[in-house]
């Protein structure tokens, strides 16, 4: 447990400096391609992850978008409403605080891996 927490934290350290947005409340109907399509209006999306739970076949409503630059990320963050499939999604700067929140949920779902993968 401690080891995985450290690994998660380490993964965080490397990804925290990157222009990454964390998206929550993604409707189940949307997957990474829908997310990518939506956020492409703000800049070049380098990476877009919406991890699925292979046990259930559903995702957990969270995803990460890595932009090419900080400005593009800011563009996305500045828009107030992001609507995906008619549902408002929440977008956050992916920083330590959000990491803390996610890691709480993540422990429950074993999601520390996804953080490392980003």
């Amino acid at each position, binding site marked *: 447990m401690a080891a995985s927490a450290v*690994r998660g934290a380490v993964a965080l350290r490397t990804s925290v400096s990157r222009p990454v947005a964390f998206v929550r409340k993604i409707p189940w109907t949307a*997957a990474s391609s829908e997310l990518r399509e939506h956020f492409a209006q703000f800049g070049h999306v380098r990476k877009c992850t919406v991890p699925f739970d292979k046990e259930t076949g559903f995702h957990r409503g969270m995803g990460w978008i890595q932009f090419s630059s900080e400005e593009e990320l800011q563009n996305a963050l500045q828009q107030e409403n992001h609507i995906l499939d008619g549902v408002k999604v929440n977008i956050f700067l992916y920083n*330590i605080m959000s990491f803390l929140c996610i890691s709480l949920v993540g422990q429950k779902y074993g999601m520390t891996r996804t953080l490392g993968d980003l």
Partner: protein
Amino acid sequence: MAALLRPARWLLQAGADPRLPLSLRLLAGGLSRPHAAPCLPAARAGPVAGGLLNQARLYAVAVEKKNYLQEEPASSHRRNASHFDWALTRLDNSVRRTGRIPKTLLQKVFDTTCHSGSPGGNQALLLLRSCGSLLPELQVSERTEFAHRIWDKLQKLGTVYDVSHYNALLKVYLQNEHKFSPTDFLAKMEEANIQPNRVTYQRLIAAYCNVGDIEGASKILGFMKTKDLPVTEAVFSALVTGHARAGDIENAENILTVMKDAGIEPGPDTYLALLNAYAEKGDIDRVKQTLEKVEKSDLYFMDRDLFQIIFSFSKAGYSQYVPEILEKITYERRYIPDAMNLILLLVTEKLEDTAFQILLACPVSREDSLSDFGSFFLRHCVTMNTPAEKLKDYCKKLKESQMHTSPLQFTLQSALLANKTDLAKALMKALKEEGFPVRTHYFWPLLAGHQKKKDVQGIVEVLKAMHEMGVSPDQETYVNYVFPSFDSARSVRAVLQENGCLPESNVFSQAELRSEAVNGNLAYILSFLESNTQPLSFASLRGSLSLGFRRSMDINLWSKITELLYKDGRYCQEPPGPTEAVGYFLYNLIDSMSDSEVQAKEERLRQYFHQLKEMNIKIPENIYRGIRNLLDSYHVPELIKDVNTLVEREKIDSRKTTQLPSSLLESTLEKLQAENQPIGDVLKQLILALCSEENMQKALELKAKYESDMVVGGYAALINLCCRHDNAEDALNLKQELDDLGAALEVAIDCHAKYKVLPRIHDILCKLIDKGETDLIQKAMNFVSQEQGEMTMLYDLFFAFLQTGNYKEAKKIIETPGIRARSTRLQWFCDRCISSNQVEILEKLVELTQKLFECDRDQLYYSLLKLYKINGDWQRADAVWNKMQEENIIPRAKTLRLLAEILRNSNQEVPFDVPELWYEGEKHSLNSSSPSRAESNIQKDLLNACQQKKSKDAYATFLKAQKQNIVLNSETYSSLIKLLLEKDSFLEAVQVKEFAETHIKGFTLNDAANSLLIITQVRRDYLKEALTTLKTALDLEQIPSRIAVTRLIQAYALKGDVESIQAIQKMVDGLEHSIGLSSMVFINNTALAQIKNNNIDVAIENIENMLTSENQTVEPQYFGLAYLFRKVIEEQLEPAVEKISIMAERLANQFAVYKPVTDLFLQLLDSGKVDDARALLQRCGAIAEQTSIFLVFCIRSSRRPGKASTLKSLLELIPELIEKEEAYTSVMKSYVLDKDAVSAKALYEYLTARNIKLNDLFLKRYAVLLKNAGEPVPFTEPPESFEFYAKQLKESRENPL
């Protein structure tokens, strides 16, 4: 008429004064109302959110107070109490928001309650009360079953039931229309020695009335009369229902007159009972008349009452009258949860059309287009198997009425979650018809469901359905949800072809490639790439490739594949060309790995880069720079040099560089200096440029030349560069050159980089704050935040502000959203305040943390009291006592004792009962009525002896009780058995167990006792019995302790009993995580058992297979075989030692798996076979590089005495280890344990000679060792306790979580 008048006459006679006291009437009405229709929405039925939960809350407080005096340690009450609060909040929130409790939530609360130890009475009450109308989604029979399950389980766990629990159970029966015998129920209560009260009788009357049994109801009324209990409106209302259900509506109506005669005005409840009676008969006219009559009176019906009438009509088959009642509903917002409850209940009763009518009538705001209403209805319809056509119709209407924006999608999700394939298909078709997209991942839940059941046919059906719907599966679909159920991708291809749904695109091949990559099968990937004829873009392969690389250890294949991509015309010849494409691939590969992974694979990556260089593969300069930054941030700067050799040199100049070249900067610098202008900025840029060019020599020269103009940033880069080039000396010199505050910060930061501790950051911060150095504070905070996490940073800042008296700023910090209590850090600061007697600061700390999330207030007040005690300040201590009450904190016993001590010392009166150290308090709380005095005394004596661990006394008491034929409760026996086992009194323990089993029905040992029993049985070599105990425990769904299971496995291993080990593995399958059992335990012991059976080759082959196959269950770096090695060496199984040694070396040399050989090396050392260890090291030099394994070994060894010589030998063989903090700290600890002052001295001198900064804990240990040996301490001994420094060290290392 006679039947009616009998009870009525009683009532008239009941009291000389026919008018019951008003207070009693109100009380009775509030406590319980009977129900005409027992299976009602949450509504009147009693456990309405507020009512129930508020009562429960009051109850909880009372219980906590009582428990406080009981024998268990205070922490367990706190745990119970906080668990109760948690459960209460969860259930309360659910009811308030949705009018119900979902079954899963109740189950969860139930499970955690069971796991929390012995659940208290309040917890039981909360759970029981939730099993009635608050579960509208369950059939009534299921609800009662649930209640019984809870009842039995909690009883088994030792919960003591009182009359409130029996009443709660009765309520559940009423709400669930459960048929039961009231007399049996009373008998059961009597058996349990519990007196029924007024509420019990009222509910029993209601139970009789619900089945129309006036006779029975009258009997109970008789009881009530003899006991002189008041008869309330609730009883009359029940009688209304009773007569109506007995088919005598006239007498039901007459009850109202009788009531009035008895001086009780019929209230809404009585009228409601009557209305429900009419509704059950379908008599809309009388319903309307009565409603009008009530409207004209000063009585008032709430929406929830009307909902009951609706339910009565519907249930009785008169749903045609529902609209007429609906008209009368006012739709107050607060009744929405009640409406939801009714809707769900109707769906459960298969009256979904009526439910939908009510749903549509609900007044939800339709302006906000983003909020949906009705999901709960759709979901429950899906659960209850409502036909697809109906659901589609509901969806359409919900959408038209703008109640729900995406009802079809939601229903589909519910169908998928419930794995209802046919419904899902129908809904997807409907979506398509409506013009919505049907996406690939919609099918994944269905596939996942079939996959779980290994239902190949089901999977094919889904793929066919996808095909029909024109949705083509993508790579992920195949890799994640299709392939795992088949033997091979090839067989999937065949099946798809057979069914005509093999895609024409190359998606399938790519998926095949990916799935091989997942398994690390690079040989397949290479041959695929060689023989592939389809056009495949490099970009589409990249992800699979880096995944495959990471999962394979065959560096030759890494290189071959890279070479193929680089040189083969098919892959990346198009612009931007192979240099860029492969360079980018390398970047991505390293980027996709975590830093620990890169560190672990450093050697392999080096080999890879070397091979690429041999193959003449080049990468562009700019990509190299990216890779360099990555490696730098991963703390593997040594690899940078190896990547650097791949850079395409001739193109350097043609590429744009963002940095100015160093030569240009140098001339600018000279120019500026000649003009006598400030050069700081340019100097820094130049140093940075030189550092990025890895030109250390030049950078150092420059620094020497312009020493006075150097800025901190320049130093930092330089120190970094020196570290990278292994130039520790210059790095250290550089640090010493810095002597101002900024420098102190730099040193601290650099120290962190080297030793992973941040020395004196608190002091530095305080000084920075004092001097107002905002830039430097910012810098320090950025650093701390980055290295140790934002939370650590916030605490550092908080403490620094407090320390410097900046309370306003401190307040801001501690109010940061998301911050939570970190007990060790708070304790650290408290201790600091106490030792330096800073009263005001500590008071401020306590004040400012009042609202801090998860803050242990009692602990903080305890610290404050400690300080007051030092100062003899009883007035402030007394004020603390008041403040704690104000904050509603329940003090721990130790806090109360400390407070009492302070007051007594100042000759003040102590205003509370001081909890004694022993459990005297038991006297007060023992229930005098239940067990006899003798019994309770014996029980108390026995428990007392158990608590004091006096096993002989306890056992003697048991024998005494046995003689007197006194049977104690099961908890007492469990405690005794546990104690006897702990003291290794096995036979006595067995005797007690047998007695308990024969005298208490269903007596079982708890988890801990069973685990101890296993350990004892193993110790006595009763392995068969131990295995049986394990099985019993597992059958009881207990979680045995890790140590018990491990001991048993180990014992079987030494017997060579492979089968039993495998049997255990099967038994605990799925529980490994809960037990904390590593699969290595099985691997080690199975191998040992095989070796014991002379099957050495089989054992070795198995291990090798596990480590070299593509489907590794355990990562090689965690594949610890130390136990096996130790046992084999200990047992002197020479041929096995030899073969194992060969295996370990082979794994290291051929597969680059170093963990086993290193473990073997260490075990040889540990067994004193230093020569063998040295020989092994000489044969396999890579062992010396396994630093992390060594450090773990050092730390573990230092915990046991007598390991100093082992550690010494280790350091002799691997001398570079001594510089590692973990190593020298452990060695010192070992010397201290073995009282070896001479060696300790040598170590200390060696370390100080090398200028290694030693932490306080180390110094403290050394100082104490010297003092005990009567030698002088050559430095100031750190003043605090070991504990303090250990905590401090831990704190500073704590990861950012």
